[in-house]
């Protein structure tokens, strides 16, 4: 995520001199990652996609210069509100509550949702099959998207929703069997689910969950909004949009609604098509009290991740530290590399490699066996956290071992202890006491670092926040609730550790020796 902010910062910095040109900028935000056919890089590296062409059209109509600003999809509205971009133009669906937060333009596309399954999927052939499973199916969605809300509203707890950050990530996971089925917007489904791109996947049943793609704007930009609306209405009535969609293979009869809506007051007209063909109406936005059980489950997942991975990290760390201090040189060299690699690369990247890389590599011919390494998300998360933290723990223990006076080892050896007995009964117990404070510190840090597991679709506390922050009515209280839960978990750990430290102190004072 950090790199994305860097990209944004760079783009903004570059935007400054451009502002000196005659035409003002139209800064539009989107996410190109896994973004075909909306926004993606063509083979020649040029940004392309129907939204890119649409943005260029709008800028032309408004007499402005279009400038694309890349950001993670679910953060785009935040960027808009901060003032870093002028509009969000990236498949954002109209909802009433989103409109109240960041007012929308008239729609530029009528989207629907498509159900995507593996070619050999045995149970799910239609939407209604999802609600009939005794063992709930793992259904992948783009985090915070309309598919997530649609599934939650229509199927509730009968499906297990898994959120990813990009479409392609999720399609990889379904093809590799790490997720059962996925629901994606029709344009993405049409573009990706082809024998060339994802031969293992197919689209089943009719489209469902119709809705509208709109541009998002800031509330006080009424003038910009009016100009955009005029430009969009013109694109609809002149047939420019139809041509665009035909070019990308996205035109379908549902788009005829755009012509009708162009003549109606917005957003009031949105209600006219509020139910889809299955008779399903979008649910009201959730309240904090309504997702309390989800919040507590997420907190339990956070605890589970930390409690399961930390003992493994401690055990590996202990072996590595003892090897580095007392082992022969090949062991020392090997463990030094181990520590430096794990300590010197980001946890997020490690987790990504463990979870996504095998399934992505397995798509390459001759590398199909890699799919056997595709771990389920829990194993990947726990192993990732444990490995990453084992490097920190190894360094803690090493410091602890070196802090035990040399005379302790000599005294034990002089009594006839073997080196291992001396380590076990004399050195390690003392080193352990010395490292309680840094190890506790790491455990608390690990509690918070479990947040990265949201990238492997585990809905722990931060993942839950991401999944529900799309509801503007919920975002503040949710942030407070999640923060409070983290604090409630980490503070007792700190208190417990201090008590432990006092109890095991080596001196009367219980302080530094």
């Amino acid at each position, binding site marked *: 995520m950090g790199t994305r902010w860097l990209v944004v910062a760079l783009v903004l910095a570059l935007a400054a001199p451009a502002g000196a040109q005659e035409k003002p900028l139209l800064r539009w935000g989107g996410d190109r990652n896994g973004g075909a056919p909306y926004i993606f890089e063509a083979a020649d590296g040029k940004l392309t996609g129907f939204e890119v062409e649409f943005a260029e059209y709008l800028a032309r109509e408004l007499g402005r210069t279009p400038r694309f600003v890349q950001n993670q999809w679910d953060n785009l509205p935040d960027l808009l509100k901060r003032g870093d971009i002028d509009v969000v133009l990236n498949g954002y669906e109209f909802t009433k509550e989103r409109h109240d937060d960041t007012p929308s333009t008239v729609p530029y596309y009528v989207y629907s949702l498509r159900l995507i399954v593996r070619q050999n999927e045995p149970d799910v052939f239609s939407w209604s099959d999802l609600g009939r499973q005794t063992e709930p199916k793992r259904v992948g969605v783009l985090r915070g998207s309309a598919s997530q809300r649609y599934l939650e509203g229509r199927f509730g707890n009968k499906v297990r929703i898994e959120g990813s950050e990009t479409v392609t990530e999720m399609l990889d996971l379904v093809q590799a069997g790490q997720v059962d089925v996925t629901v994606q917007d029709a344009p993405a489904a049409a573009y990706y689910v082809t024998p060339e791109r994802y031969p293992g996947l197919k689209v089943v049943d009719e489209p469902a969950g119709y809705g509208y793609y709109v541009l998002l704007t800031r509330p006080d930009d009424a003038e910009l909004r009016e100009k955009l609306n005029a430009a969009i209405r013109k694109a609809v009535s002149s047939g420019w949009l139809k041509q665009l969609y035909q070019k990308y293979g996205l035109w379908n009869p549902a788009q005829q609604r755009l012509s009708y809506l162009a003549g109606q007051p917005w957003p009031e007209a949105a209600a006219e098509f509020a139910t889809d063909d299955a008779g399903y109406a979008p649910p009201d936005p959730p309240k904090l009290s309504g997702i309390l059980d989800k919040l507590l489950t997420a907190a339990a997942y956070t605890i589970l991740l930390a409690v399961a991975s930390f003992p493994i990290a401690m055990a590996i760390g202990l072996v590595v530290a003892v090897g580095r201090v007392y082992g022969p040189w090949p062991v020392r060299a090997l463990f030094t590399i181990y520590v430096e690699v794990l300590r010197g690369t980001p946890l997020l990247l490690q987790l990504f490699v463990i979870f996504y890389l095998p399934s992505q590599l397995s798509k390459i011919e001759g590398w199909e066996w890699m799919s056997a390494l595709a771990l389920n998300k829990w194993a990947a998360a726990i192993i990732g956290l444990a490995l990453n933290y084992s490097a920190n723990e190894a360094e803690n223990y090493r410091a602890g071992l070196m802090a035990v006076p040399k005379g302790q080892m000599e005294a034990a050896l*002089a009594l006839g202890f073997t080196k291992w007995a001396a380590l076990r009964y004399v050195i390690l117990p003392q080193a352990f006491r010395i490292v309680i404070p840094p190890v506790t510190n790491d455990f608390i840090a690990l509690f918070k670092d479990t947040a990265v597991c949201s990238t492997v679709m585990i809905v722990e506390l931060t993942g839950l926040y991401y999944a529900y922050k799309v509801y503007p009515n919920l975002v503040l209280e949710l942030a407070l609730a999640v923060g409070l839960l983290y604090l409630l978990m980490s503070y007792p750990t700190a208190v417990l550790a201090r008590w432990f430290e006092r109890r095991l102190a080596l001196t009367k004072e219980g302080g530094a020796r």
Partner: protein
Amino acid sequence: MIRVTNLVKFHGQTPILNGATLEVAKGQVAALVGPSGSGKSTLLRCVNGLEAFQEGEIAVGDALKLTGGSAPPKATLLALRRTVGMVFQQFNLFPHMTALKNVMSGPVHALGKPEAEAEVTAKALLARVGLADKHDAKPAQLSGGQQQRVAIARALAVDPAAILFDEPTSALDPKMSAEVMRVIDDLADDAALQVAMVIVTHDLAAVRRIADVVHVLGSGKVTFSGPPDEAFAPNGPAADLL
């Protein structure tokens, strides 16, 4: 019991021991004296295998032998240390164990004796050094003199044939020093206790009182071995240390 022959030891380029030779008989109390830096402590540490040496030989009993310039086999080192105990200047008690557990640690963790048996021996030894009431005290709760007495009990607990005392009272004030020396006196006087003792110390009064033999070290060599009266006689080899 302990025979050191032509020991040569360098720290880098600096010679510490340069052909030191001495012998300690079974049950004998030997004192090692000499000016600071003459290599007394180094010699002791070589005998216990805590330091390697370049040339010469150290033999303990009939079977155990350390040879200069080669790393001794682990089994030899282990057997050697179970035969020869050591008491350090800085006590080196295990701070996370009580006094009793410290004394029990050798029998239990080095010799594999059952805890119950080790505890009986350890309690008797703590009583012998005058600390019967300090079983449950942690080292940090004991004075320096008390800690060193626990350390002596700990060394005795593995039933060694010899104990090496490396400046056992140097870190203590005179009062505590005296109480530790009383314990060492008591061990030296105990005819039933067949433990050879080698003491490195600057407490020459104590040496005169308890030593059977005094070895004087100078320039990395043993320059004199003989009874204390002779060593400390006016114009004797150790007279200038007085």
